[in-house]
């Protein structure tokens, strides 16, 4: 790591040929040093084969931290492969992916029917690889004393389009007669798509009168400052702000369950556990560096996803994902806009 730091200090853009030469020499010596270090600490088989090339990723901001972590680790074993990660949102990323501009798309929801249609038209075959779980969390203010849990039906009553719920009492009679103020992600977000599909039954169907923000930290701020607030966002944002917020256990039919690493991983936090994915362009797999990167991604997804605040999938799902890569098994397990239940993962 230090070697990189030293080289790059000297590697500001320079224009004179002499400086360029000395810069090359520096990079060369550092690369040798890194190689040496790699051979010393090699813990994977990849370190031995020196690959070159580029792997371009883009897509969801939710998946970005995992992809960033994988790219960072991959740099250590394959320093000559240039991995880039952009953030254009799941939908924007799919547009670039299907136009052939990227090799891998980060997606916080399964591919949609209309995106599959474009893929068929453009003759783009893709491989769907789940990489982690994210538990959508329903959150209230820390000083909210009355909410003990909520059922999926109550959430639907609250969030469905045309909902007449104005006060807490409208949800459950024993709750106070105070105005409820709602916070949630904006309509471009995969989180919004997933929540509305799972709770309201149709992707994108939501009451419109809530404070929407693409910035989840703004939602955290809003909810932590308002005792009558309720909102939803990814579990990682709750985990980073535990002292300011209160988690609402969700009753999906088998009693109230709070999201946690365990309940999300074993599927008991239902139905708001959602898998997040990467989509791999099948033709890009012809390139050795993309194939090795994809395998590296899946092999390290469990560990790295945990480090950046997500929940790993059950181990056998990763095994199946690896098999998907080696068998080049294209297509989606989620036929279009069908309900994107986490359970779809587990049935191959």
């Amino acid at each position, binding site marked *: *790591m230090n070697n*990189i*730091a*030293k080289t*790059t*200090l000297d*590697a*500001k*853009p320079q224009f004179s040929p002499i400086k360029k030469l000395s810069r090359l020499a520096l990079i060369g010596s550092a690369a040798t040093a890194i190689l040496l270090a790699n051979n010393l600490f090699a813990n994977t088989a990849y370190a031995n084969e020196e690959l070159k090339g580029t792997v*371009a990723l*883009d897509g969801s*901001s939710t998946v*970005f*931290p995992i*992809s*960033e*972590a994988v*790219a*960072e680790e991959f*740099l250590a074993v394959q320093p000559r492969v*240039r*991995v*880039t*990660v*952009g*953030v*254009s949102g799941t939908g924007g990323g799919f547009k*670039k992916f299907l136009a052939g*501009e990227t090799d891998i798309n980060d997606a916080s929801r399964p591919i949609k029917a209309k995106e599959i249609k474009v893929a068929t038209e453009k003759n783009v075959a893709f491989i769907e690889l789940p990489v982690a779980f994210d538990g959508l969390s329903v959150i209230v203010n820390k000083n909210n004393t009355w909410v003990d849990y909520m059922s999926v039906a109550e959430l639907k009553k609250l969030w469905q389009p045309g909902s007449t719920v104005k006060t807490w009492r409208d949800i459950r009679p024993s709750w106070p007669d105070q105005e409820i103020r709602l916070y949630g992600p904006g309509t471009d977000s995969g989180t919004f798509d997933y929540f509305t599909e799972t709770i309201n039954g149709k992707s994108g169907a939501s009451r419109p009168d809530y404070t929407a923000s693409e*910035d*989840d*930290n703004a939602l955290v701020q809003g909810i932590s400052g308002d005792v009558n607030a309720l909102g939803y966002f*990814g579990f*990682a*944002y709750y*985990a*980073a*702000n535990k002292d300011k917020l209160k988690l609402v256990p969700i009753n999906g039919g088998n009693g109230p369950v709070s999201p946690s690493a365990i309940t999300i991983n074993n599927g008991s936090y239902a139905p708001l556990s959602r898998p997040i994915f990467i989509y791999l362009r099948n033709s890009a797999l012809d390139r050795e560096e993309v194939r090795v990167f994809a395998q590296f991604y899946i092999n390290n997804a469990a560990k*790295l996803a945990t*480090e*950046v*605040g997500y929940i790993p999938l059950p181990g056998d799902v990763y095994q199946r994902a690896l098999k998907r890569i080696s068998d080049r098994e294209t297509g989606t397990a989620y036929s279009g806009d069908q309900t994107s239940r986490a359970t779809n993962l587990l049935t191959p």
Partner: protein
Amino acid sequence: MNQSSDNALNTSDRHLQRRHRKASLFSSFCALITFMGVALLALLLYQVCVDGIKWLDIQFLTSFPSRFPARAGILSALVGTLWLISLIALIAIPIGVATALYLEEFSKKNRLNRLIELNISNLAGVPSIVYGIIGLALFVRGLNLERSLISGALTMSLLILPVIIIASREAIKTVPMSIRHAAFALGATRWQTAWAHVLPASFPGILTGVILALSRAIGETAPLIMIGGLTYVAFLPDGPMDSFTAMPIQIYNWVARPQHEFHQLAASAIIVLLAVLLIMNAAAIVIRHKTER
């Protein structure tokens, strides 16, 4: 009689006093408003510094982004921004100054030129994301320049051209007519006058405009994200056709992360961005002082 004139004097005296009081009230009001602006800026800087100072060290300046806040750095974004600014300056300054020179010194005041002038003023008010959309359609896809530094620099150049043109025109306008007349009287051509006299005389003003415009370019995020500036890049660009990231994109990404440490990293990056900006401004002041003499 005496008494009444005394009274009149008193009244006018009181009028005068009241007017003086009004004047001093207004001037202290203006001072207060000015101070408020400065105080807000100071507060902002203070908060950024408190948050950001913790991670700000050589390691931060010389590392690539990382999932570990302690290892994360701004290097690829900083170098990307320096590349961008250099390319933008190379593209936008010649075009902008030449346009201003043409409009002020060479063009006839006809309807077409008035239309051009009107359009330039309007373009200065167009939201930056619109330039991003143009850049995506024209440079990235149309000219097939892909998601490269040069696409970003061309897009940003479009964005700041109106500012450079307007500021340069104002600077050229302030050059006294007598200088031009003197040059013409000595037999200089229009081109010689413009190049050897008007341009050097207006240089300090043009420089101010250029620096303001580049400062705007350095802080813009939206058009860069639109044309496909990346977020995680762990290499330095070799040339204008390479993919890139820039400081505002990196700051934006860190601010949106859940963990508080990344928010502090964003603050550190803001300090670096401010430092780059201040260095640019300082350089401009030095150059201006040298040329004014």
